[in-house]
């Protein structure tokens, strides 16, 4: 029998695909190399890996190029690719204390244990659109790249923390030592939930909620955060950031036969600890509480939103619907996929809708409605009604 193409649809889709393919290749520009994406559009690449839930810089770059820069589409490509790969083992939960910082700031304190390490960030550069000469910029970039290749140790971004101890103590450790902050690090969830393996729903553990946020669409999470600051829901107040770190995190697996940890490599991650000043009537005001955020790549916005939402979720005991919002509405693929499905044909459903509109216009329906408005006094025999529903004994 083989493959049977149905007339119409298949041809139309093939033609649309060909148009996409041609315009992808046929742009009036040189071919986009993957390193241009991984090295020059770093934030974009990191974001796609974070939302795609897969640390694979080269694959992410391919996805971005194939998606022509559409971030959600690129994340979708990564995730769909991951679906085809077998899951051979589970990672050993990474220890965030092993994160080697490329950047580390502590807004809450002036003098902190370890350095305030600004590192590579856009935060402090003026938002002035660079209108400089293209040729000069190209030359400057080439020179800088060549210089870095000759003396990698001079690279200020890569070696920002080289002179300091690699793992500065956390501000929170200090606060906890002085009993000013509660300890919300827990050991009752030693095997974090892998959200690619289960369907999350309210009531699922904190590790799953954190994972959902780590994989959430950045804009969605930032919006949910802001909406809860300024919008009608009002579950959040602003936190003080105890720690914002971006750095390299070692990733290990257990050897399948020996059970020994084996280092797979490093990924870059952004970690945030948010300090919350409790003010609820039933809360302990004598101590600070803490929210936690950790996302793949360099994405401070998302990690901060995550940390603030984490503590908000803890505070409202899952009573408010915020948990459902976080779990069910922040995934970029889910939201955009459902939105885009509205473009599919809906003429069966629409025909059914028209039919009901017409049914409401029939005389019968009109009479029913009219009858309701001036309902006659009922003729009822209560005894008969009671008999209709036997109220038997409950026997447990």
């Amino acid at each position: 029998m083989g493959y049977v193409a149905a007339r119409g649809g298949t041809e139309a889709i093939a033609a649309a695909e060909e148009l996409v393919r041609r315009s992808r290749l046929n742009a009036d520009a040189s071919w986009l190399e993957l390193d241009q994406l991984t090295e020059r559009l770093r934030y974009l690449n990191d974001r796609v890996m974070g939302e795609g839930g897969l640390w694979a810089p080269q694959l992410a770059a391919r996805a971005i190029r194939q998606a022509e820069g559409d971030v959600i589409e690129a994340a979708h490509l990564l995730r769909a690719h991951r679906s085809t790969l077998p899951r051979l083992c589970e990672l050993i939960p990474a220890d965030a204390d092993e994160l080697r910082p490329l950047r580390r700031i502590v807004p809450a304190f002036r003098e902190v244990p370890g350095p305030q390490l600004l590192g590579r960030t856009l935060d402090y550069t003026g938002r002035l659109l660079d209108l400089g000469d293209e040729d000069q910029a190209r030359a400057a970039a080439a020179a800088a790249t060549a210089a870095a290749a000759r003396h990698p140790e001079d690279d200020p971004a890569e070696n920002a923390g080289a002179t300091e101890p690699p793992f500065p103590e956390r501000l929170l450790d200090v606060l906890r030592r002085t009993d000013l902050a509660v300890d919300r690090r827990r050991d009752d969830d030693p095997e974090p939930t892998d959200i690619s393996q289960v369907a999350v729903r309210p009531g699922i553990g904190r590790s799953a909620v954190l994972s959902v946020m780590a994989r959430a669409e950045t804009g969605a999470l930032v919006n949910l955060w802001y909406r809860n600051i300024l919008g009608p829901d009002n579950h959040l107040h602003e936190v003080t950031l105890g720690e914002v770190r971006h750095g390299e995190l070692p990733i290990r697996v257990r050897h399948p036969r020996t059970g020994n940890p084996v280092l797979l490599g490093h990924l870059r991650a952004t970690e945030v600890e948010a300090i919350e000043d409790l003010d609820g009537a039933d809360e302990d005001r004598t101590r600070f509480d803490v929210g936690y955020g950790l996302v793949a790549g360099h994405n401070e916005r998302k990690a901060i939103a995550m940390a603030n939402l984490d503590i908000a979720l803890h505070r409202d005991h899952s009573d408010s619907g915020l948990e459902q919002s976080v779990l069910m509405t922040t995934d970029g693929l889910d939201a955009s996929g459902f939105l885009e499905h509205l473009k599919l044909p809906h003429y069966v459903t629409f025909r059914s809708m028209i039919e009901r509109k017409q049914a409401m216009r029939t005389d019968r329906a009109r009479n029913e409605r009219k009858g309701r408005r001036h309902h006659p006094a009922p003729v009822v025999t209560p005894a008969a009604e009671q008999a209709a529903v036997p109220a038997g004994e409950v026997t447990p």
Partner: protein
Amino acid sequence: MTPALRVDGLGKIYGPGTTADVAGTGPGFNRVVSPTSGGIVAAWDVSFEVGPGEALGVIGESGSGKSTVMRCICGDEEPTTGSIRLASVDGGGTDLRTLSPARRRALRVDRLAVVYQDPAEGLDLRLSAGGNVAERLTAAGWRNFGRIRERASELMLRTDVPLDRMDDPVREFSGGMRQRVQLAKALANNPPVVLLDEPTTGLDASVAASVLDLIRDLLEELGVAAVVVSHDFAVIEMLTQRVVVMHHGRIVEAGLTDQLLEDPQHPYSQRLVGAARG
């Protein structure tokens, strides 16, 4: 005869406390907060029975524990200790607290109805008056639209809700009318026991009086067992035959309503009666 409702040794402690904290609380100490742990002994050692067709009053000031007792009986809150039995469940042989939450909730359909002070607690204000009654009926398995309409109309008539308002959303109703709808809904499946929590508090005096008249007539006519929780002796006097007085989480006096009003024994009862008569 098996009482329709029987409550034995009911107690409810909020906060960090344990039963050890009961010591040092109650009327004798003039406090409900445990001096040792800060636990709140909202109700303790509360026992009573209500026979079929009988109405029992529970009176006390706010904070006396009377509403806590009611919420523990109907399942809105889980008591710390004690038992609750209904004649309609296993002939009174089963403590409701041993039932699953699902079974406990299901009792509200036709065994144990509640009328709250705030109609928003007992009604879905977005639904029509008839729809609110229909919810109870469909929960009990009614599947005939015409019969549901008839039963809802009958209940509207019985609770003095004008029939031409039956299909209007309850949120458009006045407070008194909402309370009538709540009564209609509570009585939809002829439950043998009804709990009424401050059913007329917050209503204008004239509206309250007519709702009270209605409740009294319904209780007499339907023969249900009722527990009426109120801070107001006028309500208790009008609706109940027996009464228990609660103070700082304990029952301090119990008796026939007219006798207790005539000759209160406990100083707290005397104060309450005095205030009501004053």
